[in-house]
């Protein structure tokens, strides 16, 4: 039962990274784009971003119902970066919608666009920082260490910053790849192709930097990684997919592109999950919070699982229908 819930949590996290990530990434891509791209991006994400966003809400709900201690601990010590994630979420969603529905193309349009781009950048940055803090293991629940040590230093460091950069590049990369088949003209397609290659390069670079930064901050991520066969396989999959995706970027085949990047993102998230499984939050004093020492009683897990099962039975066909209507019928 617990395993199944963890699996669903992982799946919703993967889907949020892939789909929600693509929506945030589109905002980052827009920084490097013009009016024409703005139209394509709006058309591509308007019908789906709210549904995509719900994968995050699902993950949060699973966390606070199934693993209340993880949820309450994270929200206590990572209050500041999480608050900034929220500010990003608020502005991205509202600015995007305001821009889409506002009838005027005047000054307000420019403000909305600015807010949309800025918040599309801030959210993945601080999401990455938050994840970095969960990995790094500077988190402490000992109030006596003082404000800075408890609420700031766990996330304000080189490693977490690089994690933020990595998430931001990853989201931009996913978006660029997804946008290639959305564009109607060749010139625009070529622009996304170029951006996809560049963001892929920056994702790989920052991915390598994540490991270096971890060593620099004194967290031996490389040895943890080498201990986990699943992580090694995942990394191999990620690496093998690089030339494959580059090929599909070149041929611009929508279905293959979407499938291969989906697989790659799954492998990245699986690799991370496996490195620290079953630990969710590495804690300074060594009393790590794991799935096993934080989960809710069985009665709750059972009800959660029922709700999730019924939910998935309803949501998955609806989701497929949504994507068929807006992404296949082009």
């Amino acid at each position, binding site marked *: 039962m617990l395993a199944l819930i963890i699996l669903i949590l992982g799946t919703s996290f993967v889907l949020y990274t892939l789909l929600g990530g693509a929506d945030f990434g589109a905002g980052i891509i827009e920084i490097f784009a013009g009016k024409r791209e703005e139209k394509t991006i709006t058309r591509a994400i308007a019908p789906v971003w709210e*549904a995509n966003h719900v994968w995050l809400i*699902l993950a949060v709900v699973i966390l606070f119902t199934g693993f*209340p201690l993880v949820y309450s601990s994270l*929200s206590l010590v990572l209050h500041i970066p999480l608050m900034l994630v*929220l500010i990003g979420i608020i502005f991205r969603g509202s600015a995007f919608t305001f821009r889409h529905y506002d009838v005027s193309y005047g000054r307000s349009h420019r403000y909305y666009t600015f807010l949309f781009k800025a918040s599309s950048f801030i959210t993945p940055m601080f999401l990455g920082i938050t994840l970095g803090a969960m990995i790094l293991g500077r988190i402490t629940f000992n109030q006596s260490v003082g404000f800075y040590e408890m609420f700031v230093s766990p996330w304000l460091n080189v490693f977490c910053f690089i994690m933020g950069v990595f998430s931001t590049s990853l989201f931009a990369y996913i978006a660029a790849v997804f946008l290639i088949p959305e564009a109607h003209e060749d010139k625009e397609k070529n622009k996304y192709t170029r951006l996809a290659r560049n963001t892929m390069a920056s994702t790989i670079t920052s991915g390598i930097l994540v490991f270096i930064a971890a060593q620099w901050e004194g967290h031996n991520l490389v040895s943890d990684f080498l201990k986990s066969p699943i992580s090694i396989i995942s990394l191999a999959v990620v690496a093998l997919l690089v030339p494959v995706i580059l090929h599909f970027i070149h041929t611009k085949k929508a279905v293959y592109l979407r499938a291969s990047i989906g697989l790659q993102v799954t492998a990245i998230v699986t690799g991370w999950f496996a490195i620290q499984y079953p630990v969710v939050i590495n804690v300074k004093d060594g009393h790590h919070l794991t799935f096993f020492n934080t989960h809710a*009683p069985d009665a709750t897990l059972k009800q959660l699982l029922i*709700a999730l099962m019924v939910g998935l039975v309803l949501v998955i066909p609806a989701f497929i229908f949504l994507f068929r209507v807006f992404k296949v019928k082009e």
Partner: protein
Amino acid sequence: MEDLVAARLQMALSLGFHIIFSCIGMTMPVLMAFSEWRWLRTGKQVYLDVTKAWSKGVAIFFAVGAVSGTVLSFELGLLWPEFMKHAGAIIGMPFSWEGTAFFVEAIALGVFLYGWNRLNKWVHWISGVVVGISGVLSGIFVVAANAWMNSPSGFDWVDGKAVNIDPVKAMFNDAWLSQSIHMTLAAFVATSFAVAGVHAFLLLKNRTNTFHHEAVRSALIFGAVAAILQPISGDFSAKFVAKNQPGKLAAMEALYKTSKPAGLVIGGIPNDKEQKVDYAIHIPKLLSYLAHGDFTAEVTGLDKIPKDEQPPVLVPHIAFQLMVACGTVLALAGMLYIIFSYKWQYILFKRWWLTFIAFTTPLGFIAVEAGWTVTEVGRQPWIIFGVMRTKDAVSSMPGLQYSFFLITGVYILLTFILIRLMRRQIKTVPELYESAKS
């Protein structure tokens, strides 16, 4: 600013902001589906135009509702980690169902808003119905979680820990039904009257406009029925509160001393020092009847509640009076609407009637905000009634006021943009829709 105060203000602001959008999200899909159904049945262009014009507003409000709801799902932990540590496993169930319902709602709304030209008409209409049903359900689930805070059940509290957790019992706690009905009706009253009010205001400029007339009519059908039912549900809720949370009822009614029989206090300003209500109207015996269905029943006053468990009186009392006042006006408006539309239809075109409906625009939402103030402030000092105090649940992070200031700034900005945006939307209606021109 004290951290507890900052956290409470931030929570109040976030809930008070989000609730407007949730009410709209619960009601508007039903109104749109109704209007689209009329179009499908009659083929009259005006119904389609109304549906389309509404759907644009809904898209904007729904987006803000989705993000402000996300904020709340995080704030439960960011502000009240001690509460969520214990309550998560108990009330996670309604939240997981809410997540499911909201998921379906978001998907169906995407289909509804953007699928006009891609789908069969009836499939499109069904997507609207699905949005409506899942919207109402997700509202009910969230309210069930709040009801649990007023009427905690489904666990035993042993040495500061919840044991023997039964999430099903927790979800279907004693308060869930009365609160859910009251909130769902409130959402329909507030949104329908606000929509009708805006269209009535526009009708005042041109009283023969069919577009606005049909919009007012579609909205008021729902608004009137809900507004008439609401006092009945309110009575049901009050009787429950009288039994379950006598301290809250005493605060709402500013009943300082236990009385048998107890009179109803209308209006006035509670005076904690002298334990009486200044400038109020007193109706003898009525509170006994309203609370217990018996003119001679004893009603518990604040004197029977231990000093450190008493809620504040001023805020719940005034908020309660405000809610009842707005609700009464709206129930009256609902009754008049039904009478007029059966007997004297010409009145519905009269200037005074349209002015009156335009005046009701904010009343439902004022009542919603006031009602939530009553239930939340009236529960104090508890976060889980009788189990955990609010001050023991708050985050131990110092400087919570900065979070509060930040969120306040963001929400003020959003409100300002939304008002401007909606005004612009309304201005373009005659350009976009043929039926709105004359």
